[in-house]
């Protein structure tokens, strides 16, 4: 049963520290997405890749966030320096083309980040 995996599942850190979240997409999926979910803002798309190439990171604060996909089995989201307002659940999802131009996404369990 193929799944998207994310590590760590929970992270508590102090303001100013670097945070790195990792995601292993489902093998064969050619798109990878990073989302952030909060009560106030809901689910926000931060960045996404197709065939490991970054396509859109317009939802990401560029001064402190960076997303990379060093190989097909690993995507990373880094925050440096972290701030309390970054506290949220961060989801990775991988997607594949269902038919024509329609993609279906599979979500990981999320990383719950708390910045104090």
């Amino acid at each position: 049963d193929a799944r998207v995996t994310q590590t760590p599942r929970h992270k508590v850190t102090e303001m100013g520290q670097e945070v790195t979240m990792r995601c292993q997409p489902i093998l064969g999926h050619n798109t990878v997405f990073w989302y952030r979910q909060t009560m106030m803002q809901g689910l926000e798309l931060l960045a996404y890749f197709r065939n490991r190439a970054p396509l859109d990171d317009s939802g990401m604060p560029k001064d402190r966030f960076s997303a990379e996909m060093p190989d097909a089995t690993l995507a990373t989201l880094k925050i440096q320096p972290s701030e309390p307002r970054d506290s949220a659940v961060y989801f990775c999802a991988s997607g594949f083309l269902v038919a024509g131009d329609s993609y279906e996404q599979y979500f990981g369990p999320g990383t719950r980040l708390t910045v104090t």
Partner: protein
Amino acid sequence: SQQGEEDPQALSIQEGENATMNCSYKTSINNLQWYRQNSGRGLVHLILIRSNEREKHSGRLRVTLDTSKKSSSLLITASRAADTASYFCATDAQLKGEKLTFGTGTRLTIIP
């Protein structure tokens, strides 16, 4: 920004009853999808309806799409306690099919 807006924001019904959730969106789409999120978990894909379809069924799920009104509904029949979750609609922009924009979600509670 949110493309889709679900209505109602929260819904509580008795087990066995039907639950209907609505979604409105703003721009033209290729398809609309519905996802479920259990508390503390990631989203799970439920069903996809293409812009040229009006209705689709999957088990106890029935989805309708009205592109002229830019709206969709998700009906869950014969609800079960396990259906308790948040439900989100997601739309794609016509030129970027892989990028989904999620709505605000409907929190569904099934009372045993």
